[in-house]
């Protein structure tokens, strides 16, 4: 009964949304001709500019690296403060979790646009935006795993009078470190993708060139950039997955 009720509710919401947003198959099919024109223009990819914009690919990579490192270093203590097993203070952990939840609701591009307003249209703005973004994700993943670690070593430390710091150093860190590193790599994968698009709002990196080429209508250059990006993302994903598998074994 409850099952049918939820299905009905979902269908009502879904059809309301369909009507309001004027989704129509006819419009999509009509639009396909224009999209096809666009895709035909994209082929063959024009690699002539890739070597010229290669430094910006590197900038994107550097932004992702910067953000992952800084974000994870800051995330570590905050995750400890939000973990119920480490910090035995419900008020404190709830407060930190609330703040972290709010930070995580803000989309990466919005953060980037705000940072551009603050720091100007440069890679630094993008790097700071991605740092906030990574901080939010790593902290959440980390405190969730900390919530489910074996509490006995922690209790042993507390019972001999260990402080909050020594609980982290001797109780939590040895258990959680491999997982922490694995989360950092995962966030690095996300950041590589995000670093490529924050340029669309002016925050540096390769995204700037997507914008420029769109405005100039040089679609074949866009497809070459996408292909290089695909190669970079694939390599990073492959390496990161290999390292993560190794980390999980130890």
């Amino acid at each position, binding site marked *: 009964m409850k099952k049918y009720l939820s299905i009905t509710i979902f269908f009502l919401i879904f059809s309301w949304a369909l009507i309001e*947003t*004027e989704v129509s198959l006819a419009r999509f099919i009509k*639009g396909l001709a224009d999209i096809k024109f666009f895709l035909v223009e994209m082929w063959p990819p024009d690699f002539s500019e890739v070597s010229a914009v290669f430094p910006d690919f590197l900038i994107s990579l550097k932004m992702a*690296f910067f953000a992952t490192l*800084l974000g994870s270093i800051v995330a570590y203590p905050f995750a400890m403060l939000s973990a119920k097993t480490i910090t035995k203070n419900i008020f404190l952990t709830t407060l930190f979790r609330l703040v972290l939840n709010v930070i995580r609701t*803000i989309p990466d591009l*919005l953060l980037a*646009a705000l940072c551009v307003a603050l720091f100007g249209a440069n890679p630094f703005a993008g790097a700071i935006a991605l740092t906030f973004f990574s901080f939010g994700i790593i902290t959440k993943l980390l405190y969730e795993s900390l919530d489910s670690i074996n509490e006995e070593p922690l209790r042993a430390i507390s019972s001999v009078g260990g402080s909050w710091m020594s609980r982290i150093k001797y109780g939590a860190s040895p258990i959680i470190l491999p997982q922490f590193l694995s989360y950092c790599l995962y966030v690095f994968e996300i950041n590589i993708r995000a670093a490529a698009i924050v340029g669309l709002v002016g925050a540096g990196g390769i995204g700037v060139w*997507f914008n420029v080429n769109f405005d100039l209508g040089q679609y074949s250059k866009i497809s070459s950039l996408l292909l290089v990006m695909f190669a970079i993302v694939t390599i990073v994903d492959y390496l990161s997955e290999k390292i993560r598998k190794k980390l999980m074994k130890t």
Partner: protein
Amino acid sequence: MNKKNWVLWIIGLISFFYITIEIWPQGNKKGAEMFSKVFSGENGLLNPEWGIMPSISSGLIESFQIAIIGTTFAGIFALIFGFLGSENISPKPVSIFCKLLMNAIRTIPEILMAIIFIVGVGPGAFAGILALGFHSIGTLSKLTAEIIESLDPKPMEAVLAVGGSRLSTFRYSAWPQILPEFLSILIYRLEINIRAASVLGMVGAGGIGKTLFFALMSRNWNNVGAIILGIIVVVTIVDFFSSRIRAKLI
């Protein structure tokens, strides 16, 4: 910590400082001044303009609609591609081809997809739905294929052993295993898509992003503050229901 880890940390920190120096914004000495201007003060983010709440809420509702339709469509296609891509069900060449295709789709960022679809169907919510839908097919299919690959074969063998047809094997042993996990990743994807849908409008694909874009362009921080507040509220509500439903499913 052993010697190898220390070396890695030192290399990481040195490259971090190197990158910081490289991307440090030059000629932007008004940082602190900009900070106080953007955040506090009469025209700052922290003093949101309540008067535009009606137009914000209609934008937010549209973003929600974009996310829910995009995710649903992607879910339907992801089921098909998930089966085609799973190594244990479909033939090997098909599954490899499907996985490669999905990887390629996932590389194209949502925001670039939105630009492509705007070319086809014109600016508005429909372009946003198509962009989110296509991008989500990539990620959802990969996850669905992984669910199918990790199916427990024993219940299926049991149905086959008592003389069940292929269809009833699927209906009574595979499907009940797939459905809860599939719904869970679908709802998780909705959480991601609601964030994406709130920035897609920045390139013209409907939703609150359009209002946000104009507010950012005209540096109207009161309006930006109100919009960010609205996004935080909507995303928090969606996250809340989503985590409750997912907890029930698993």
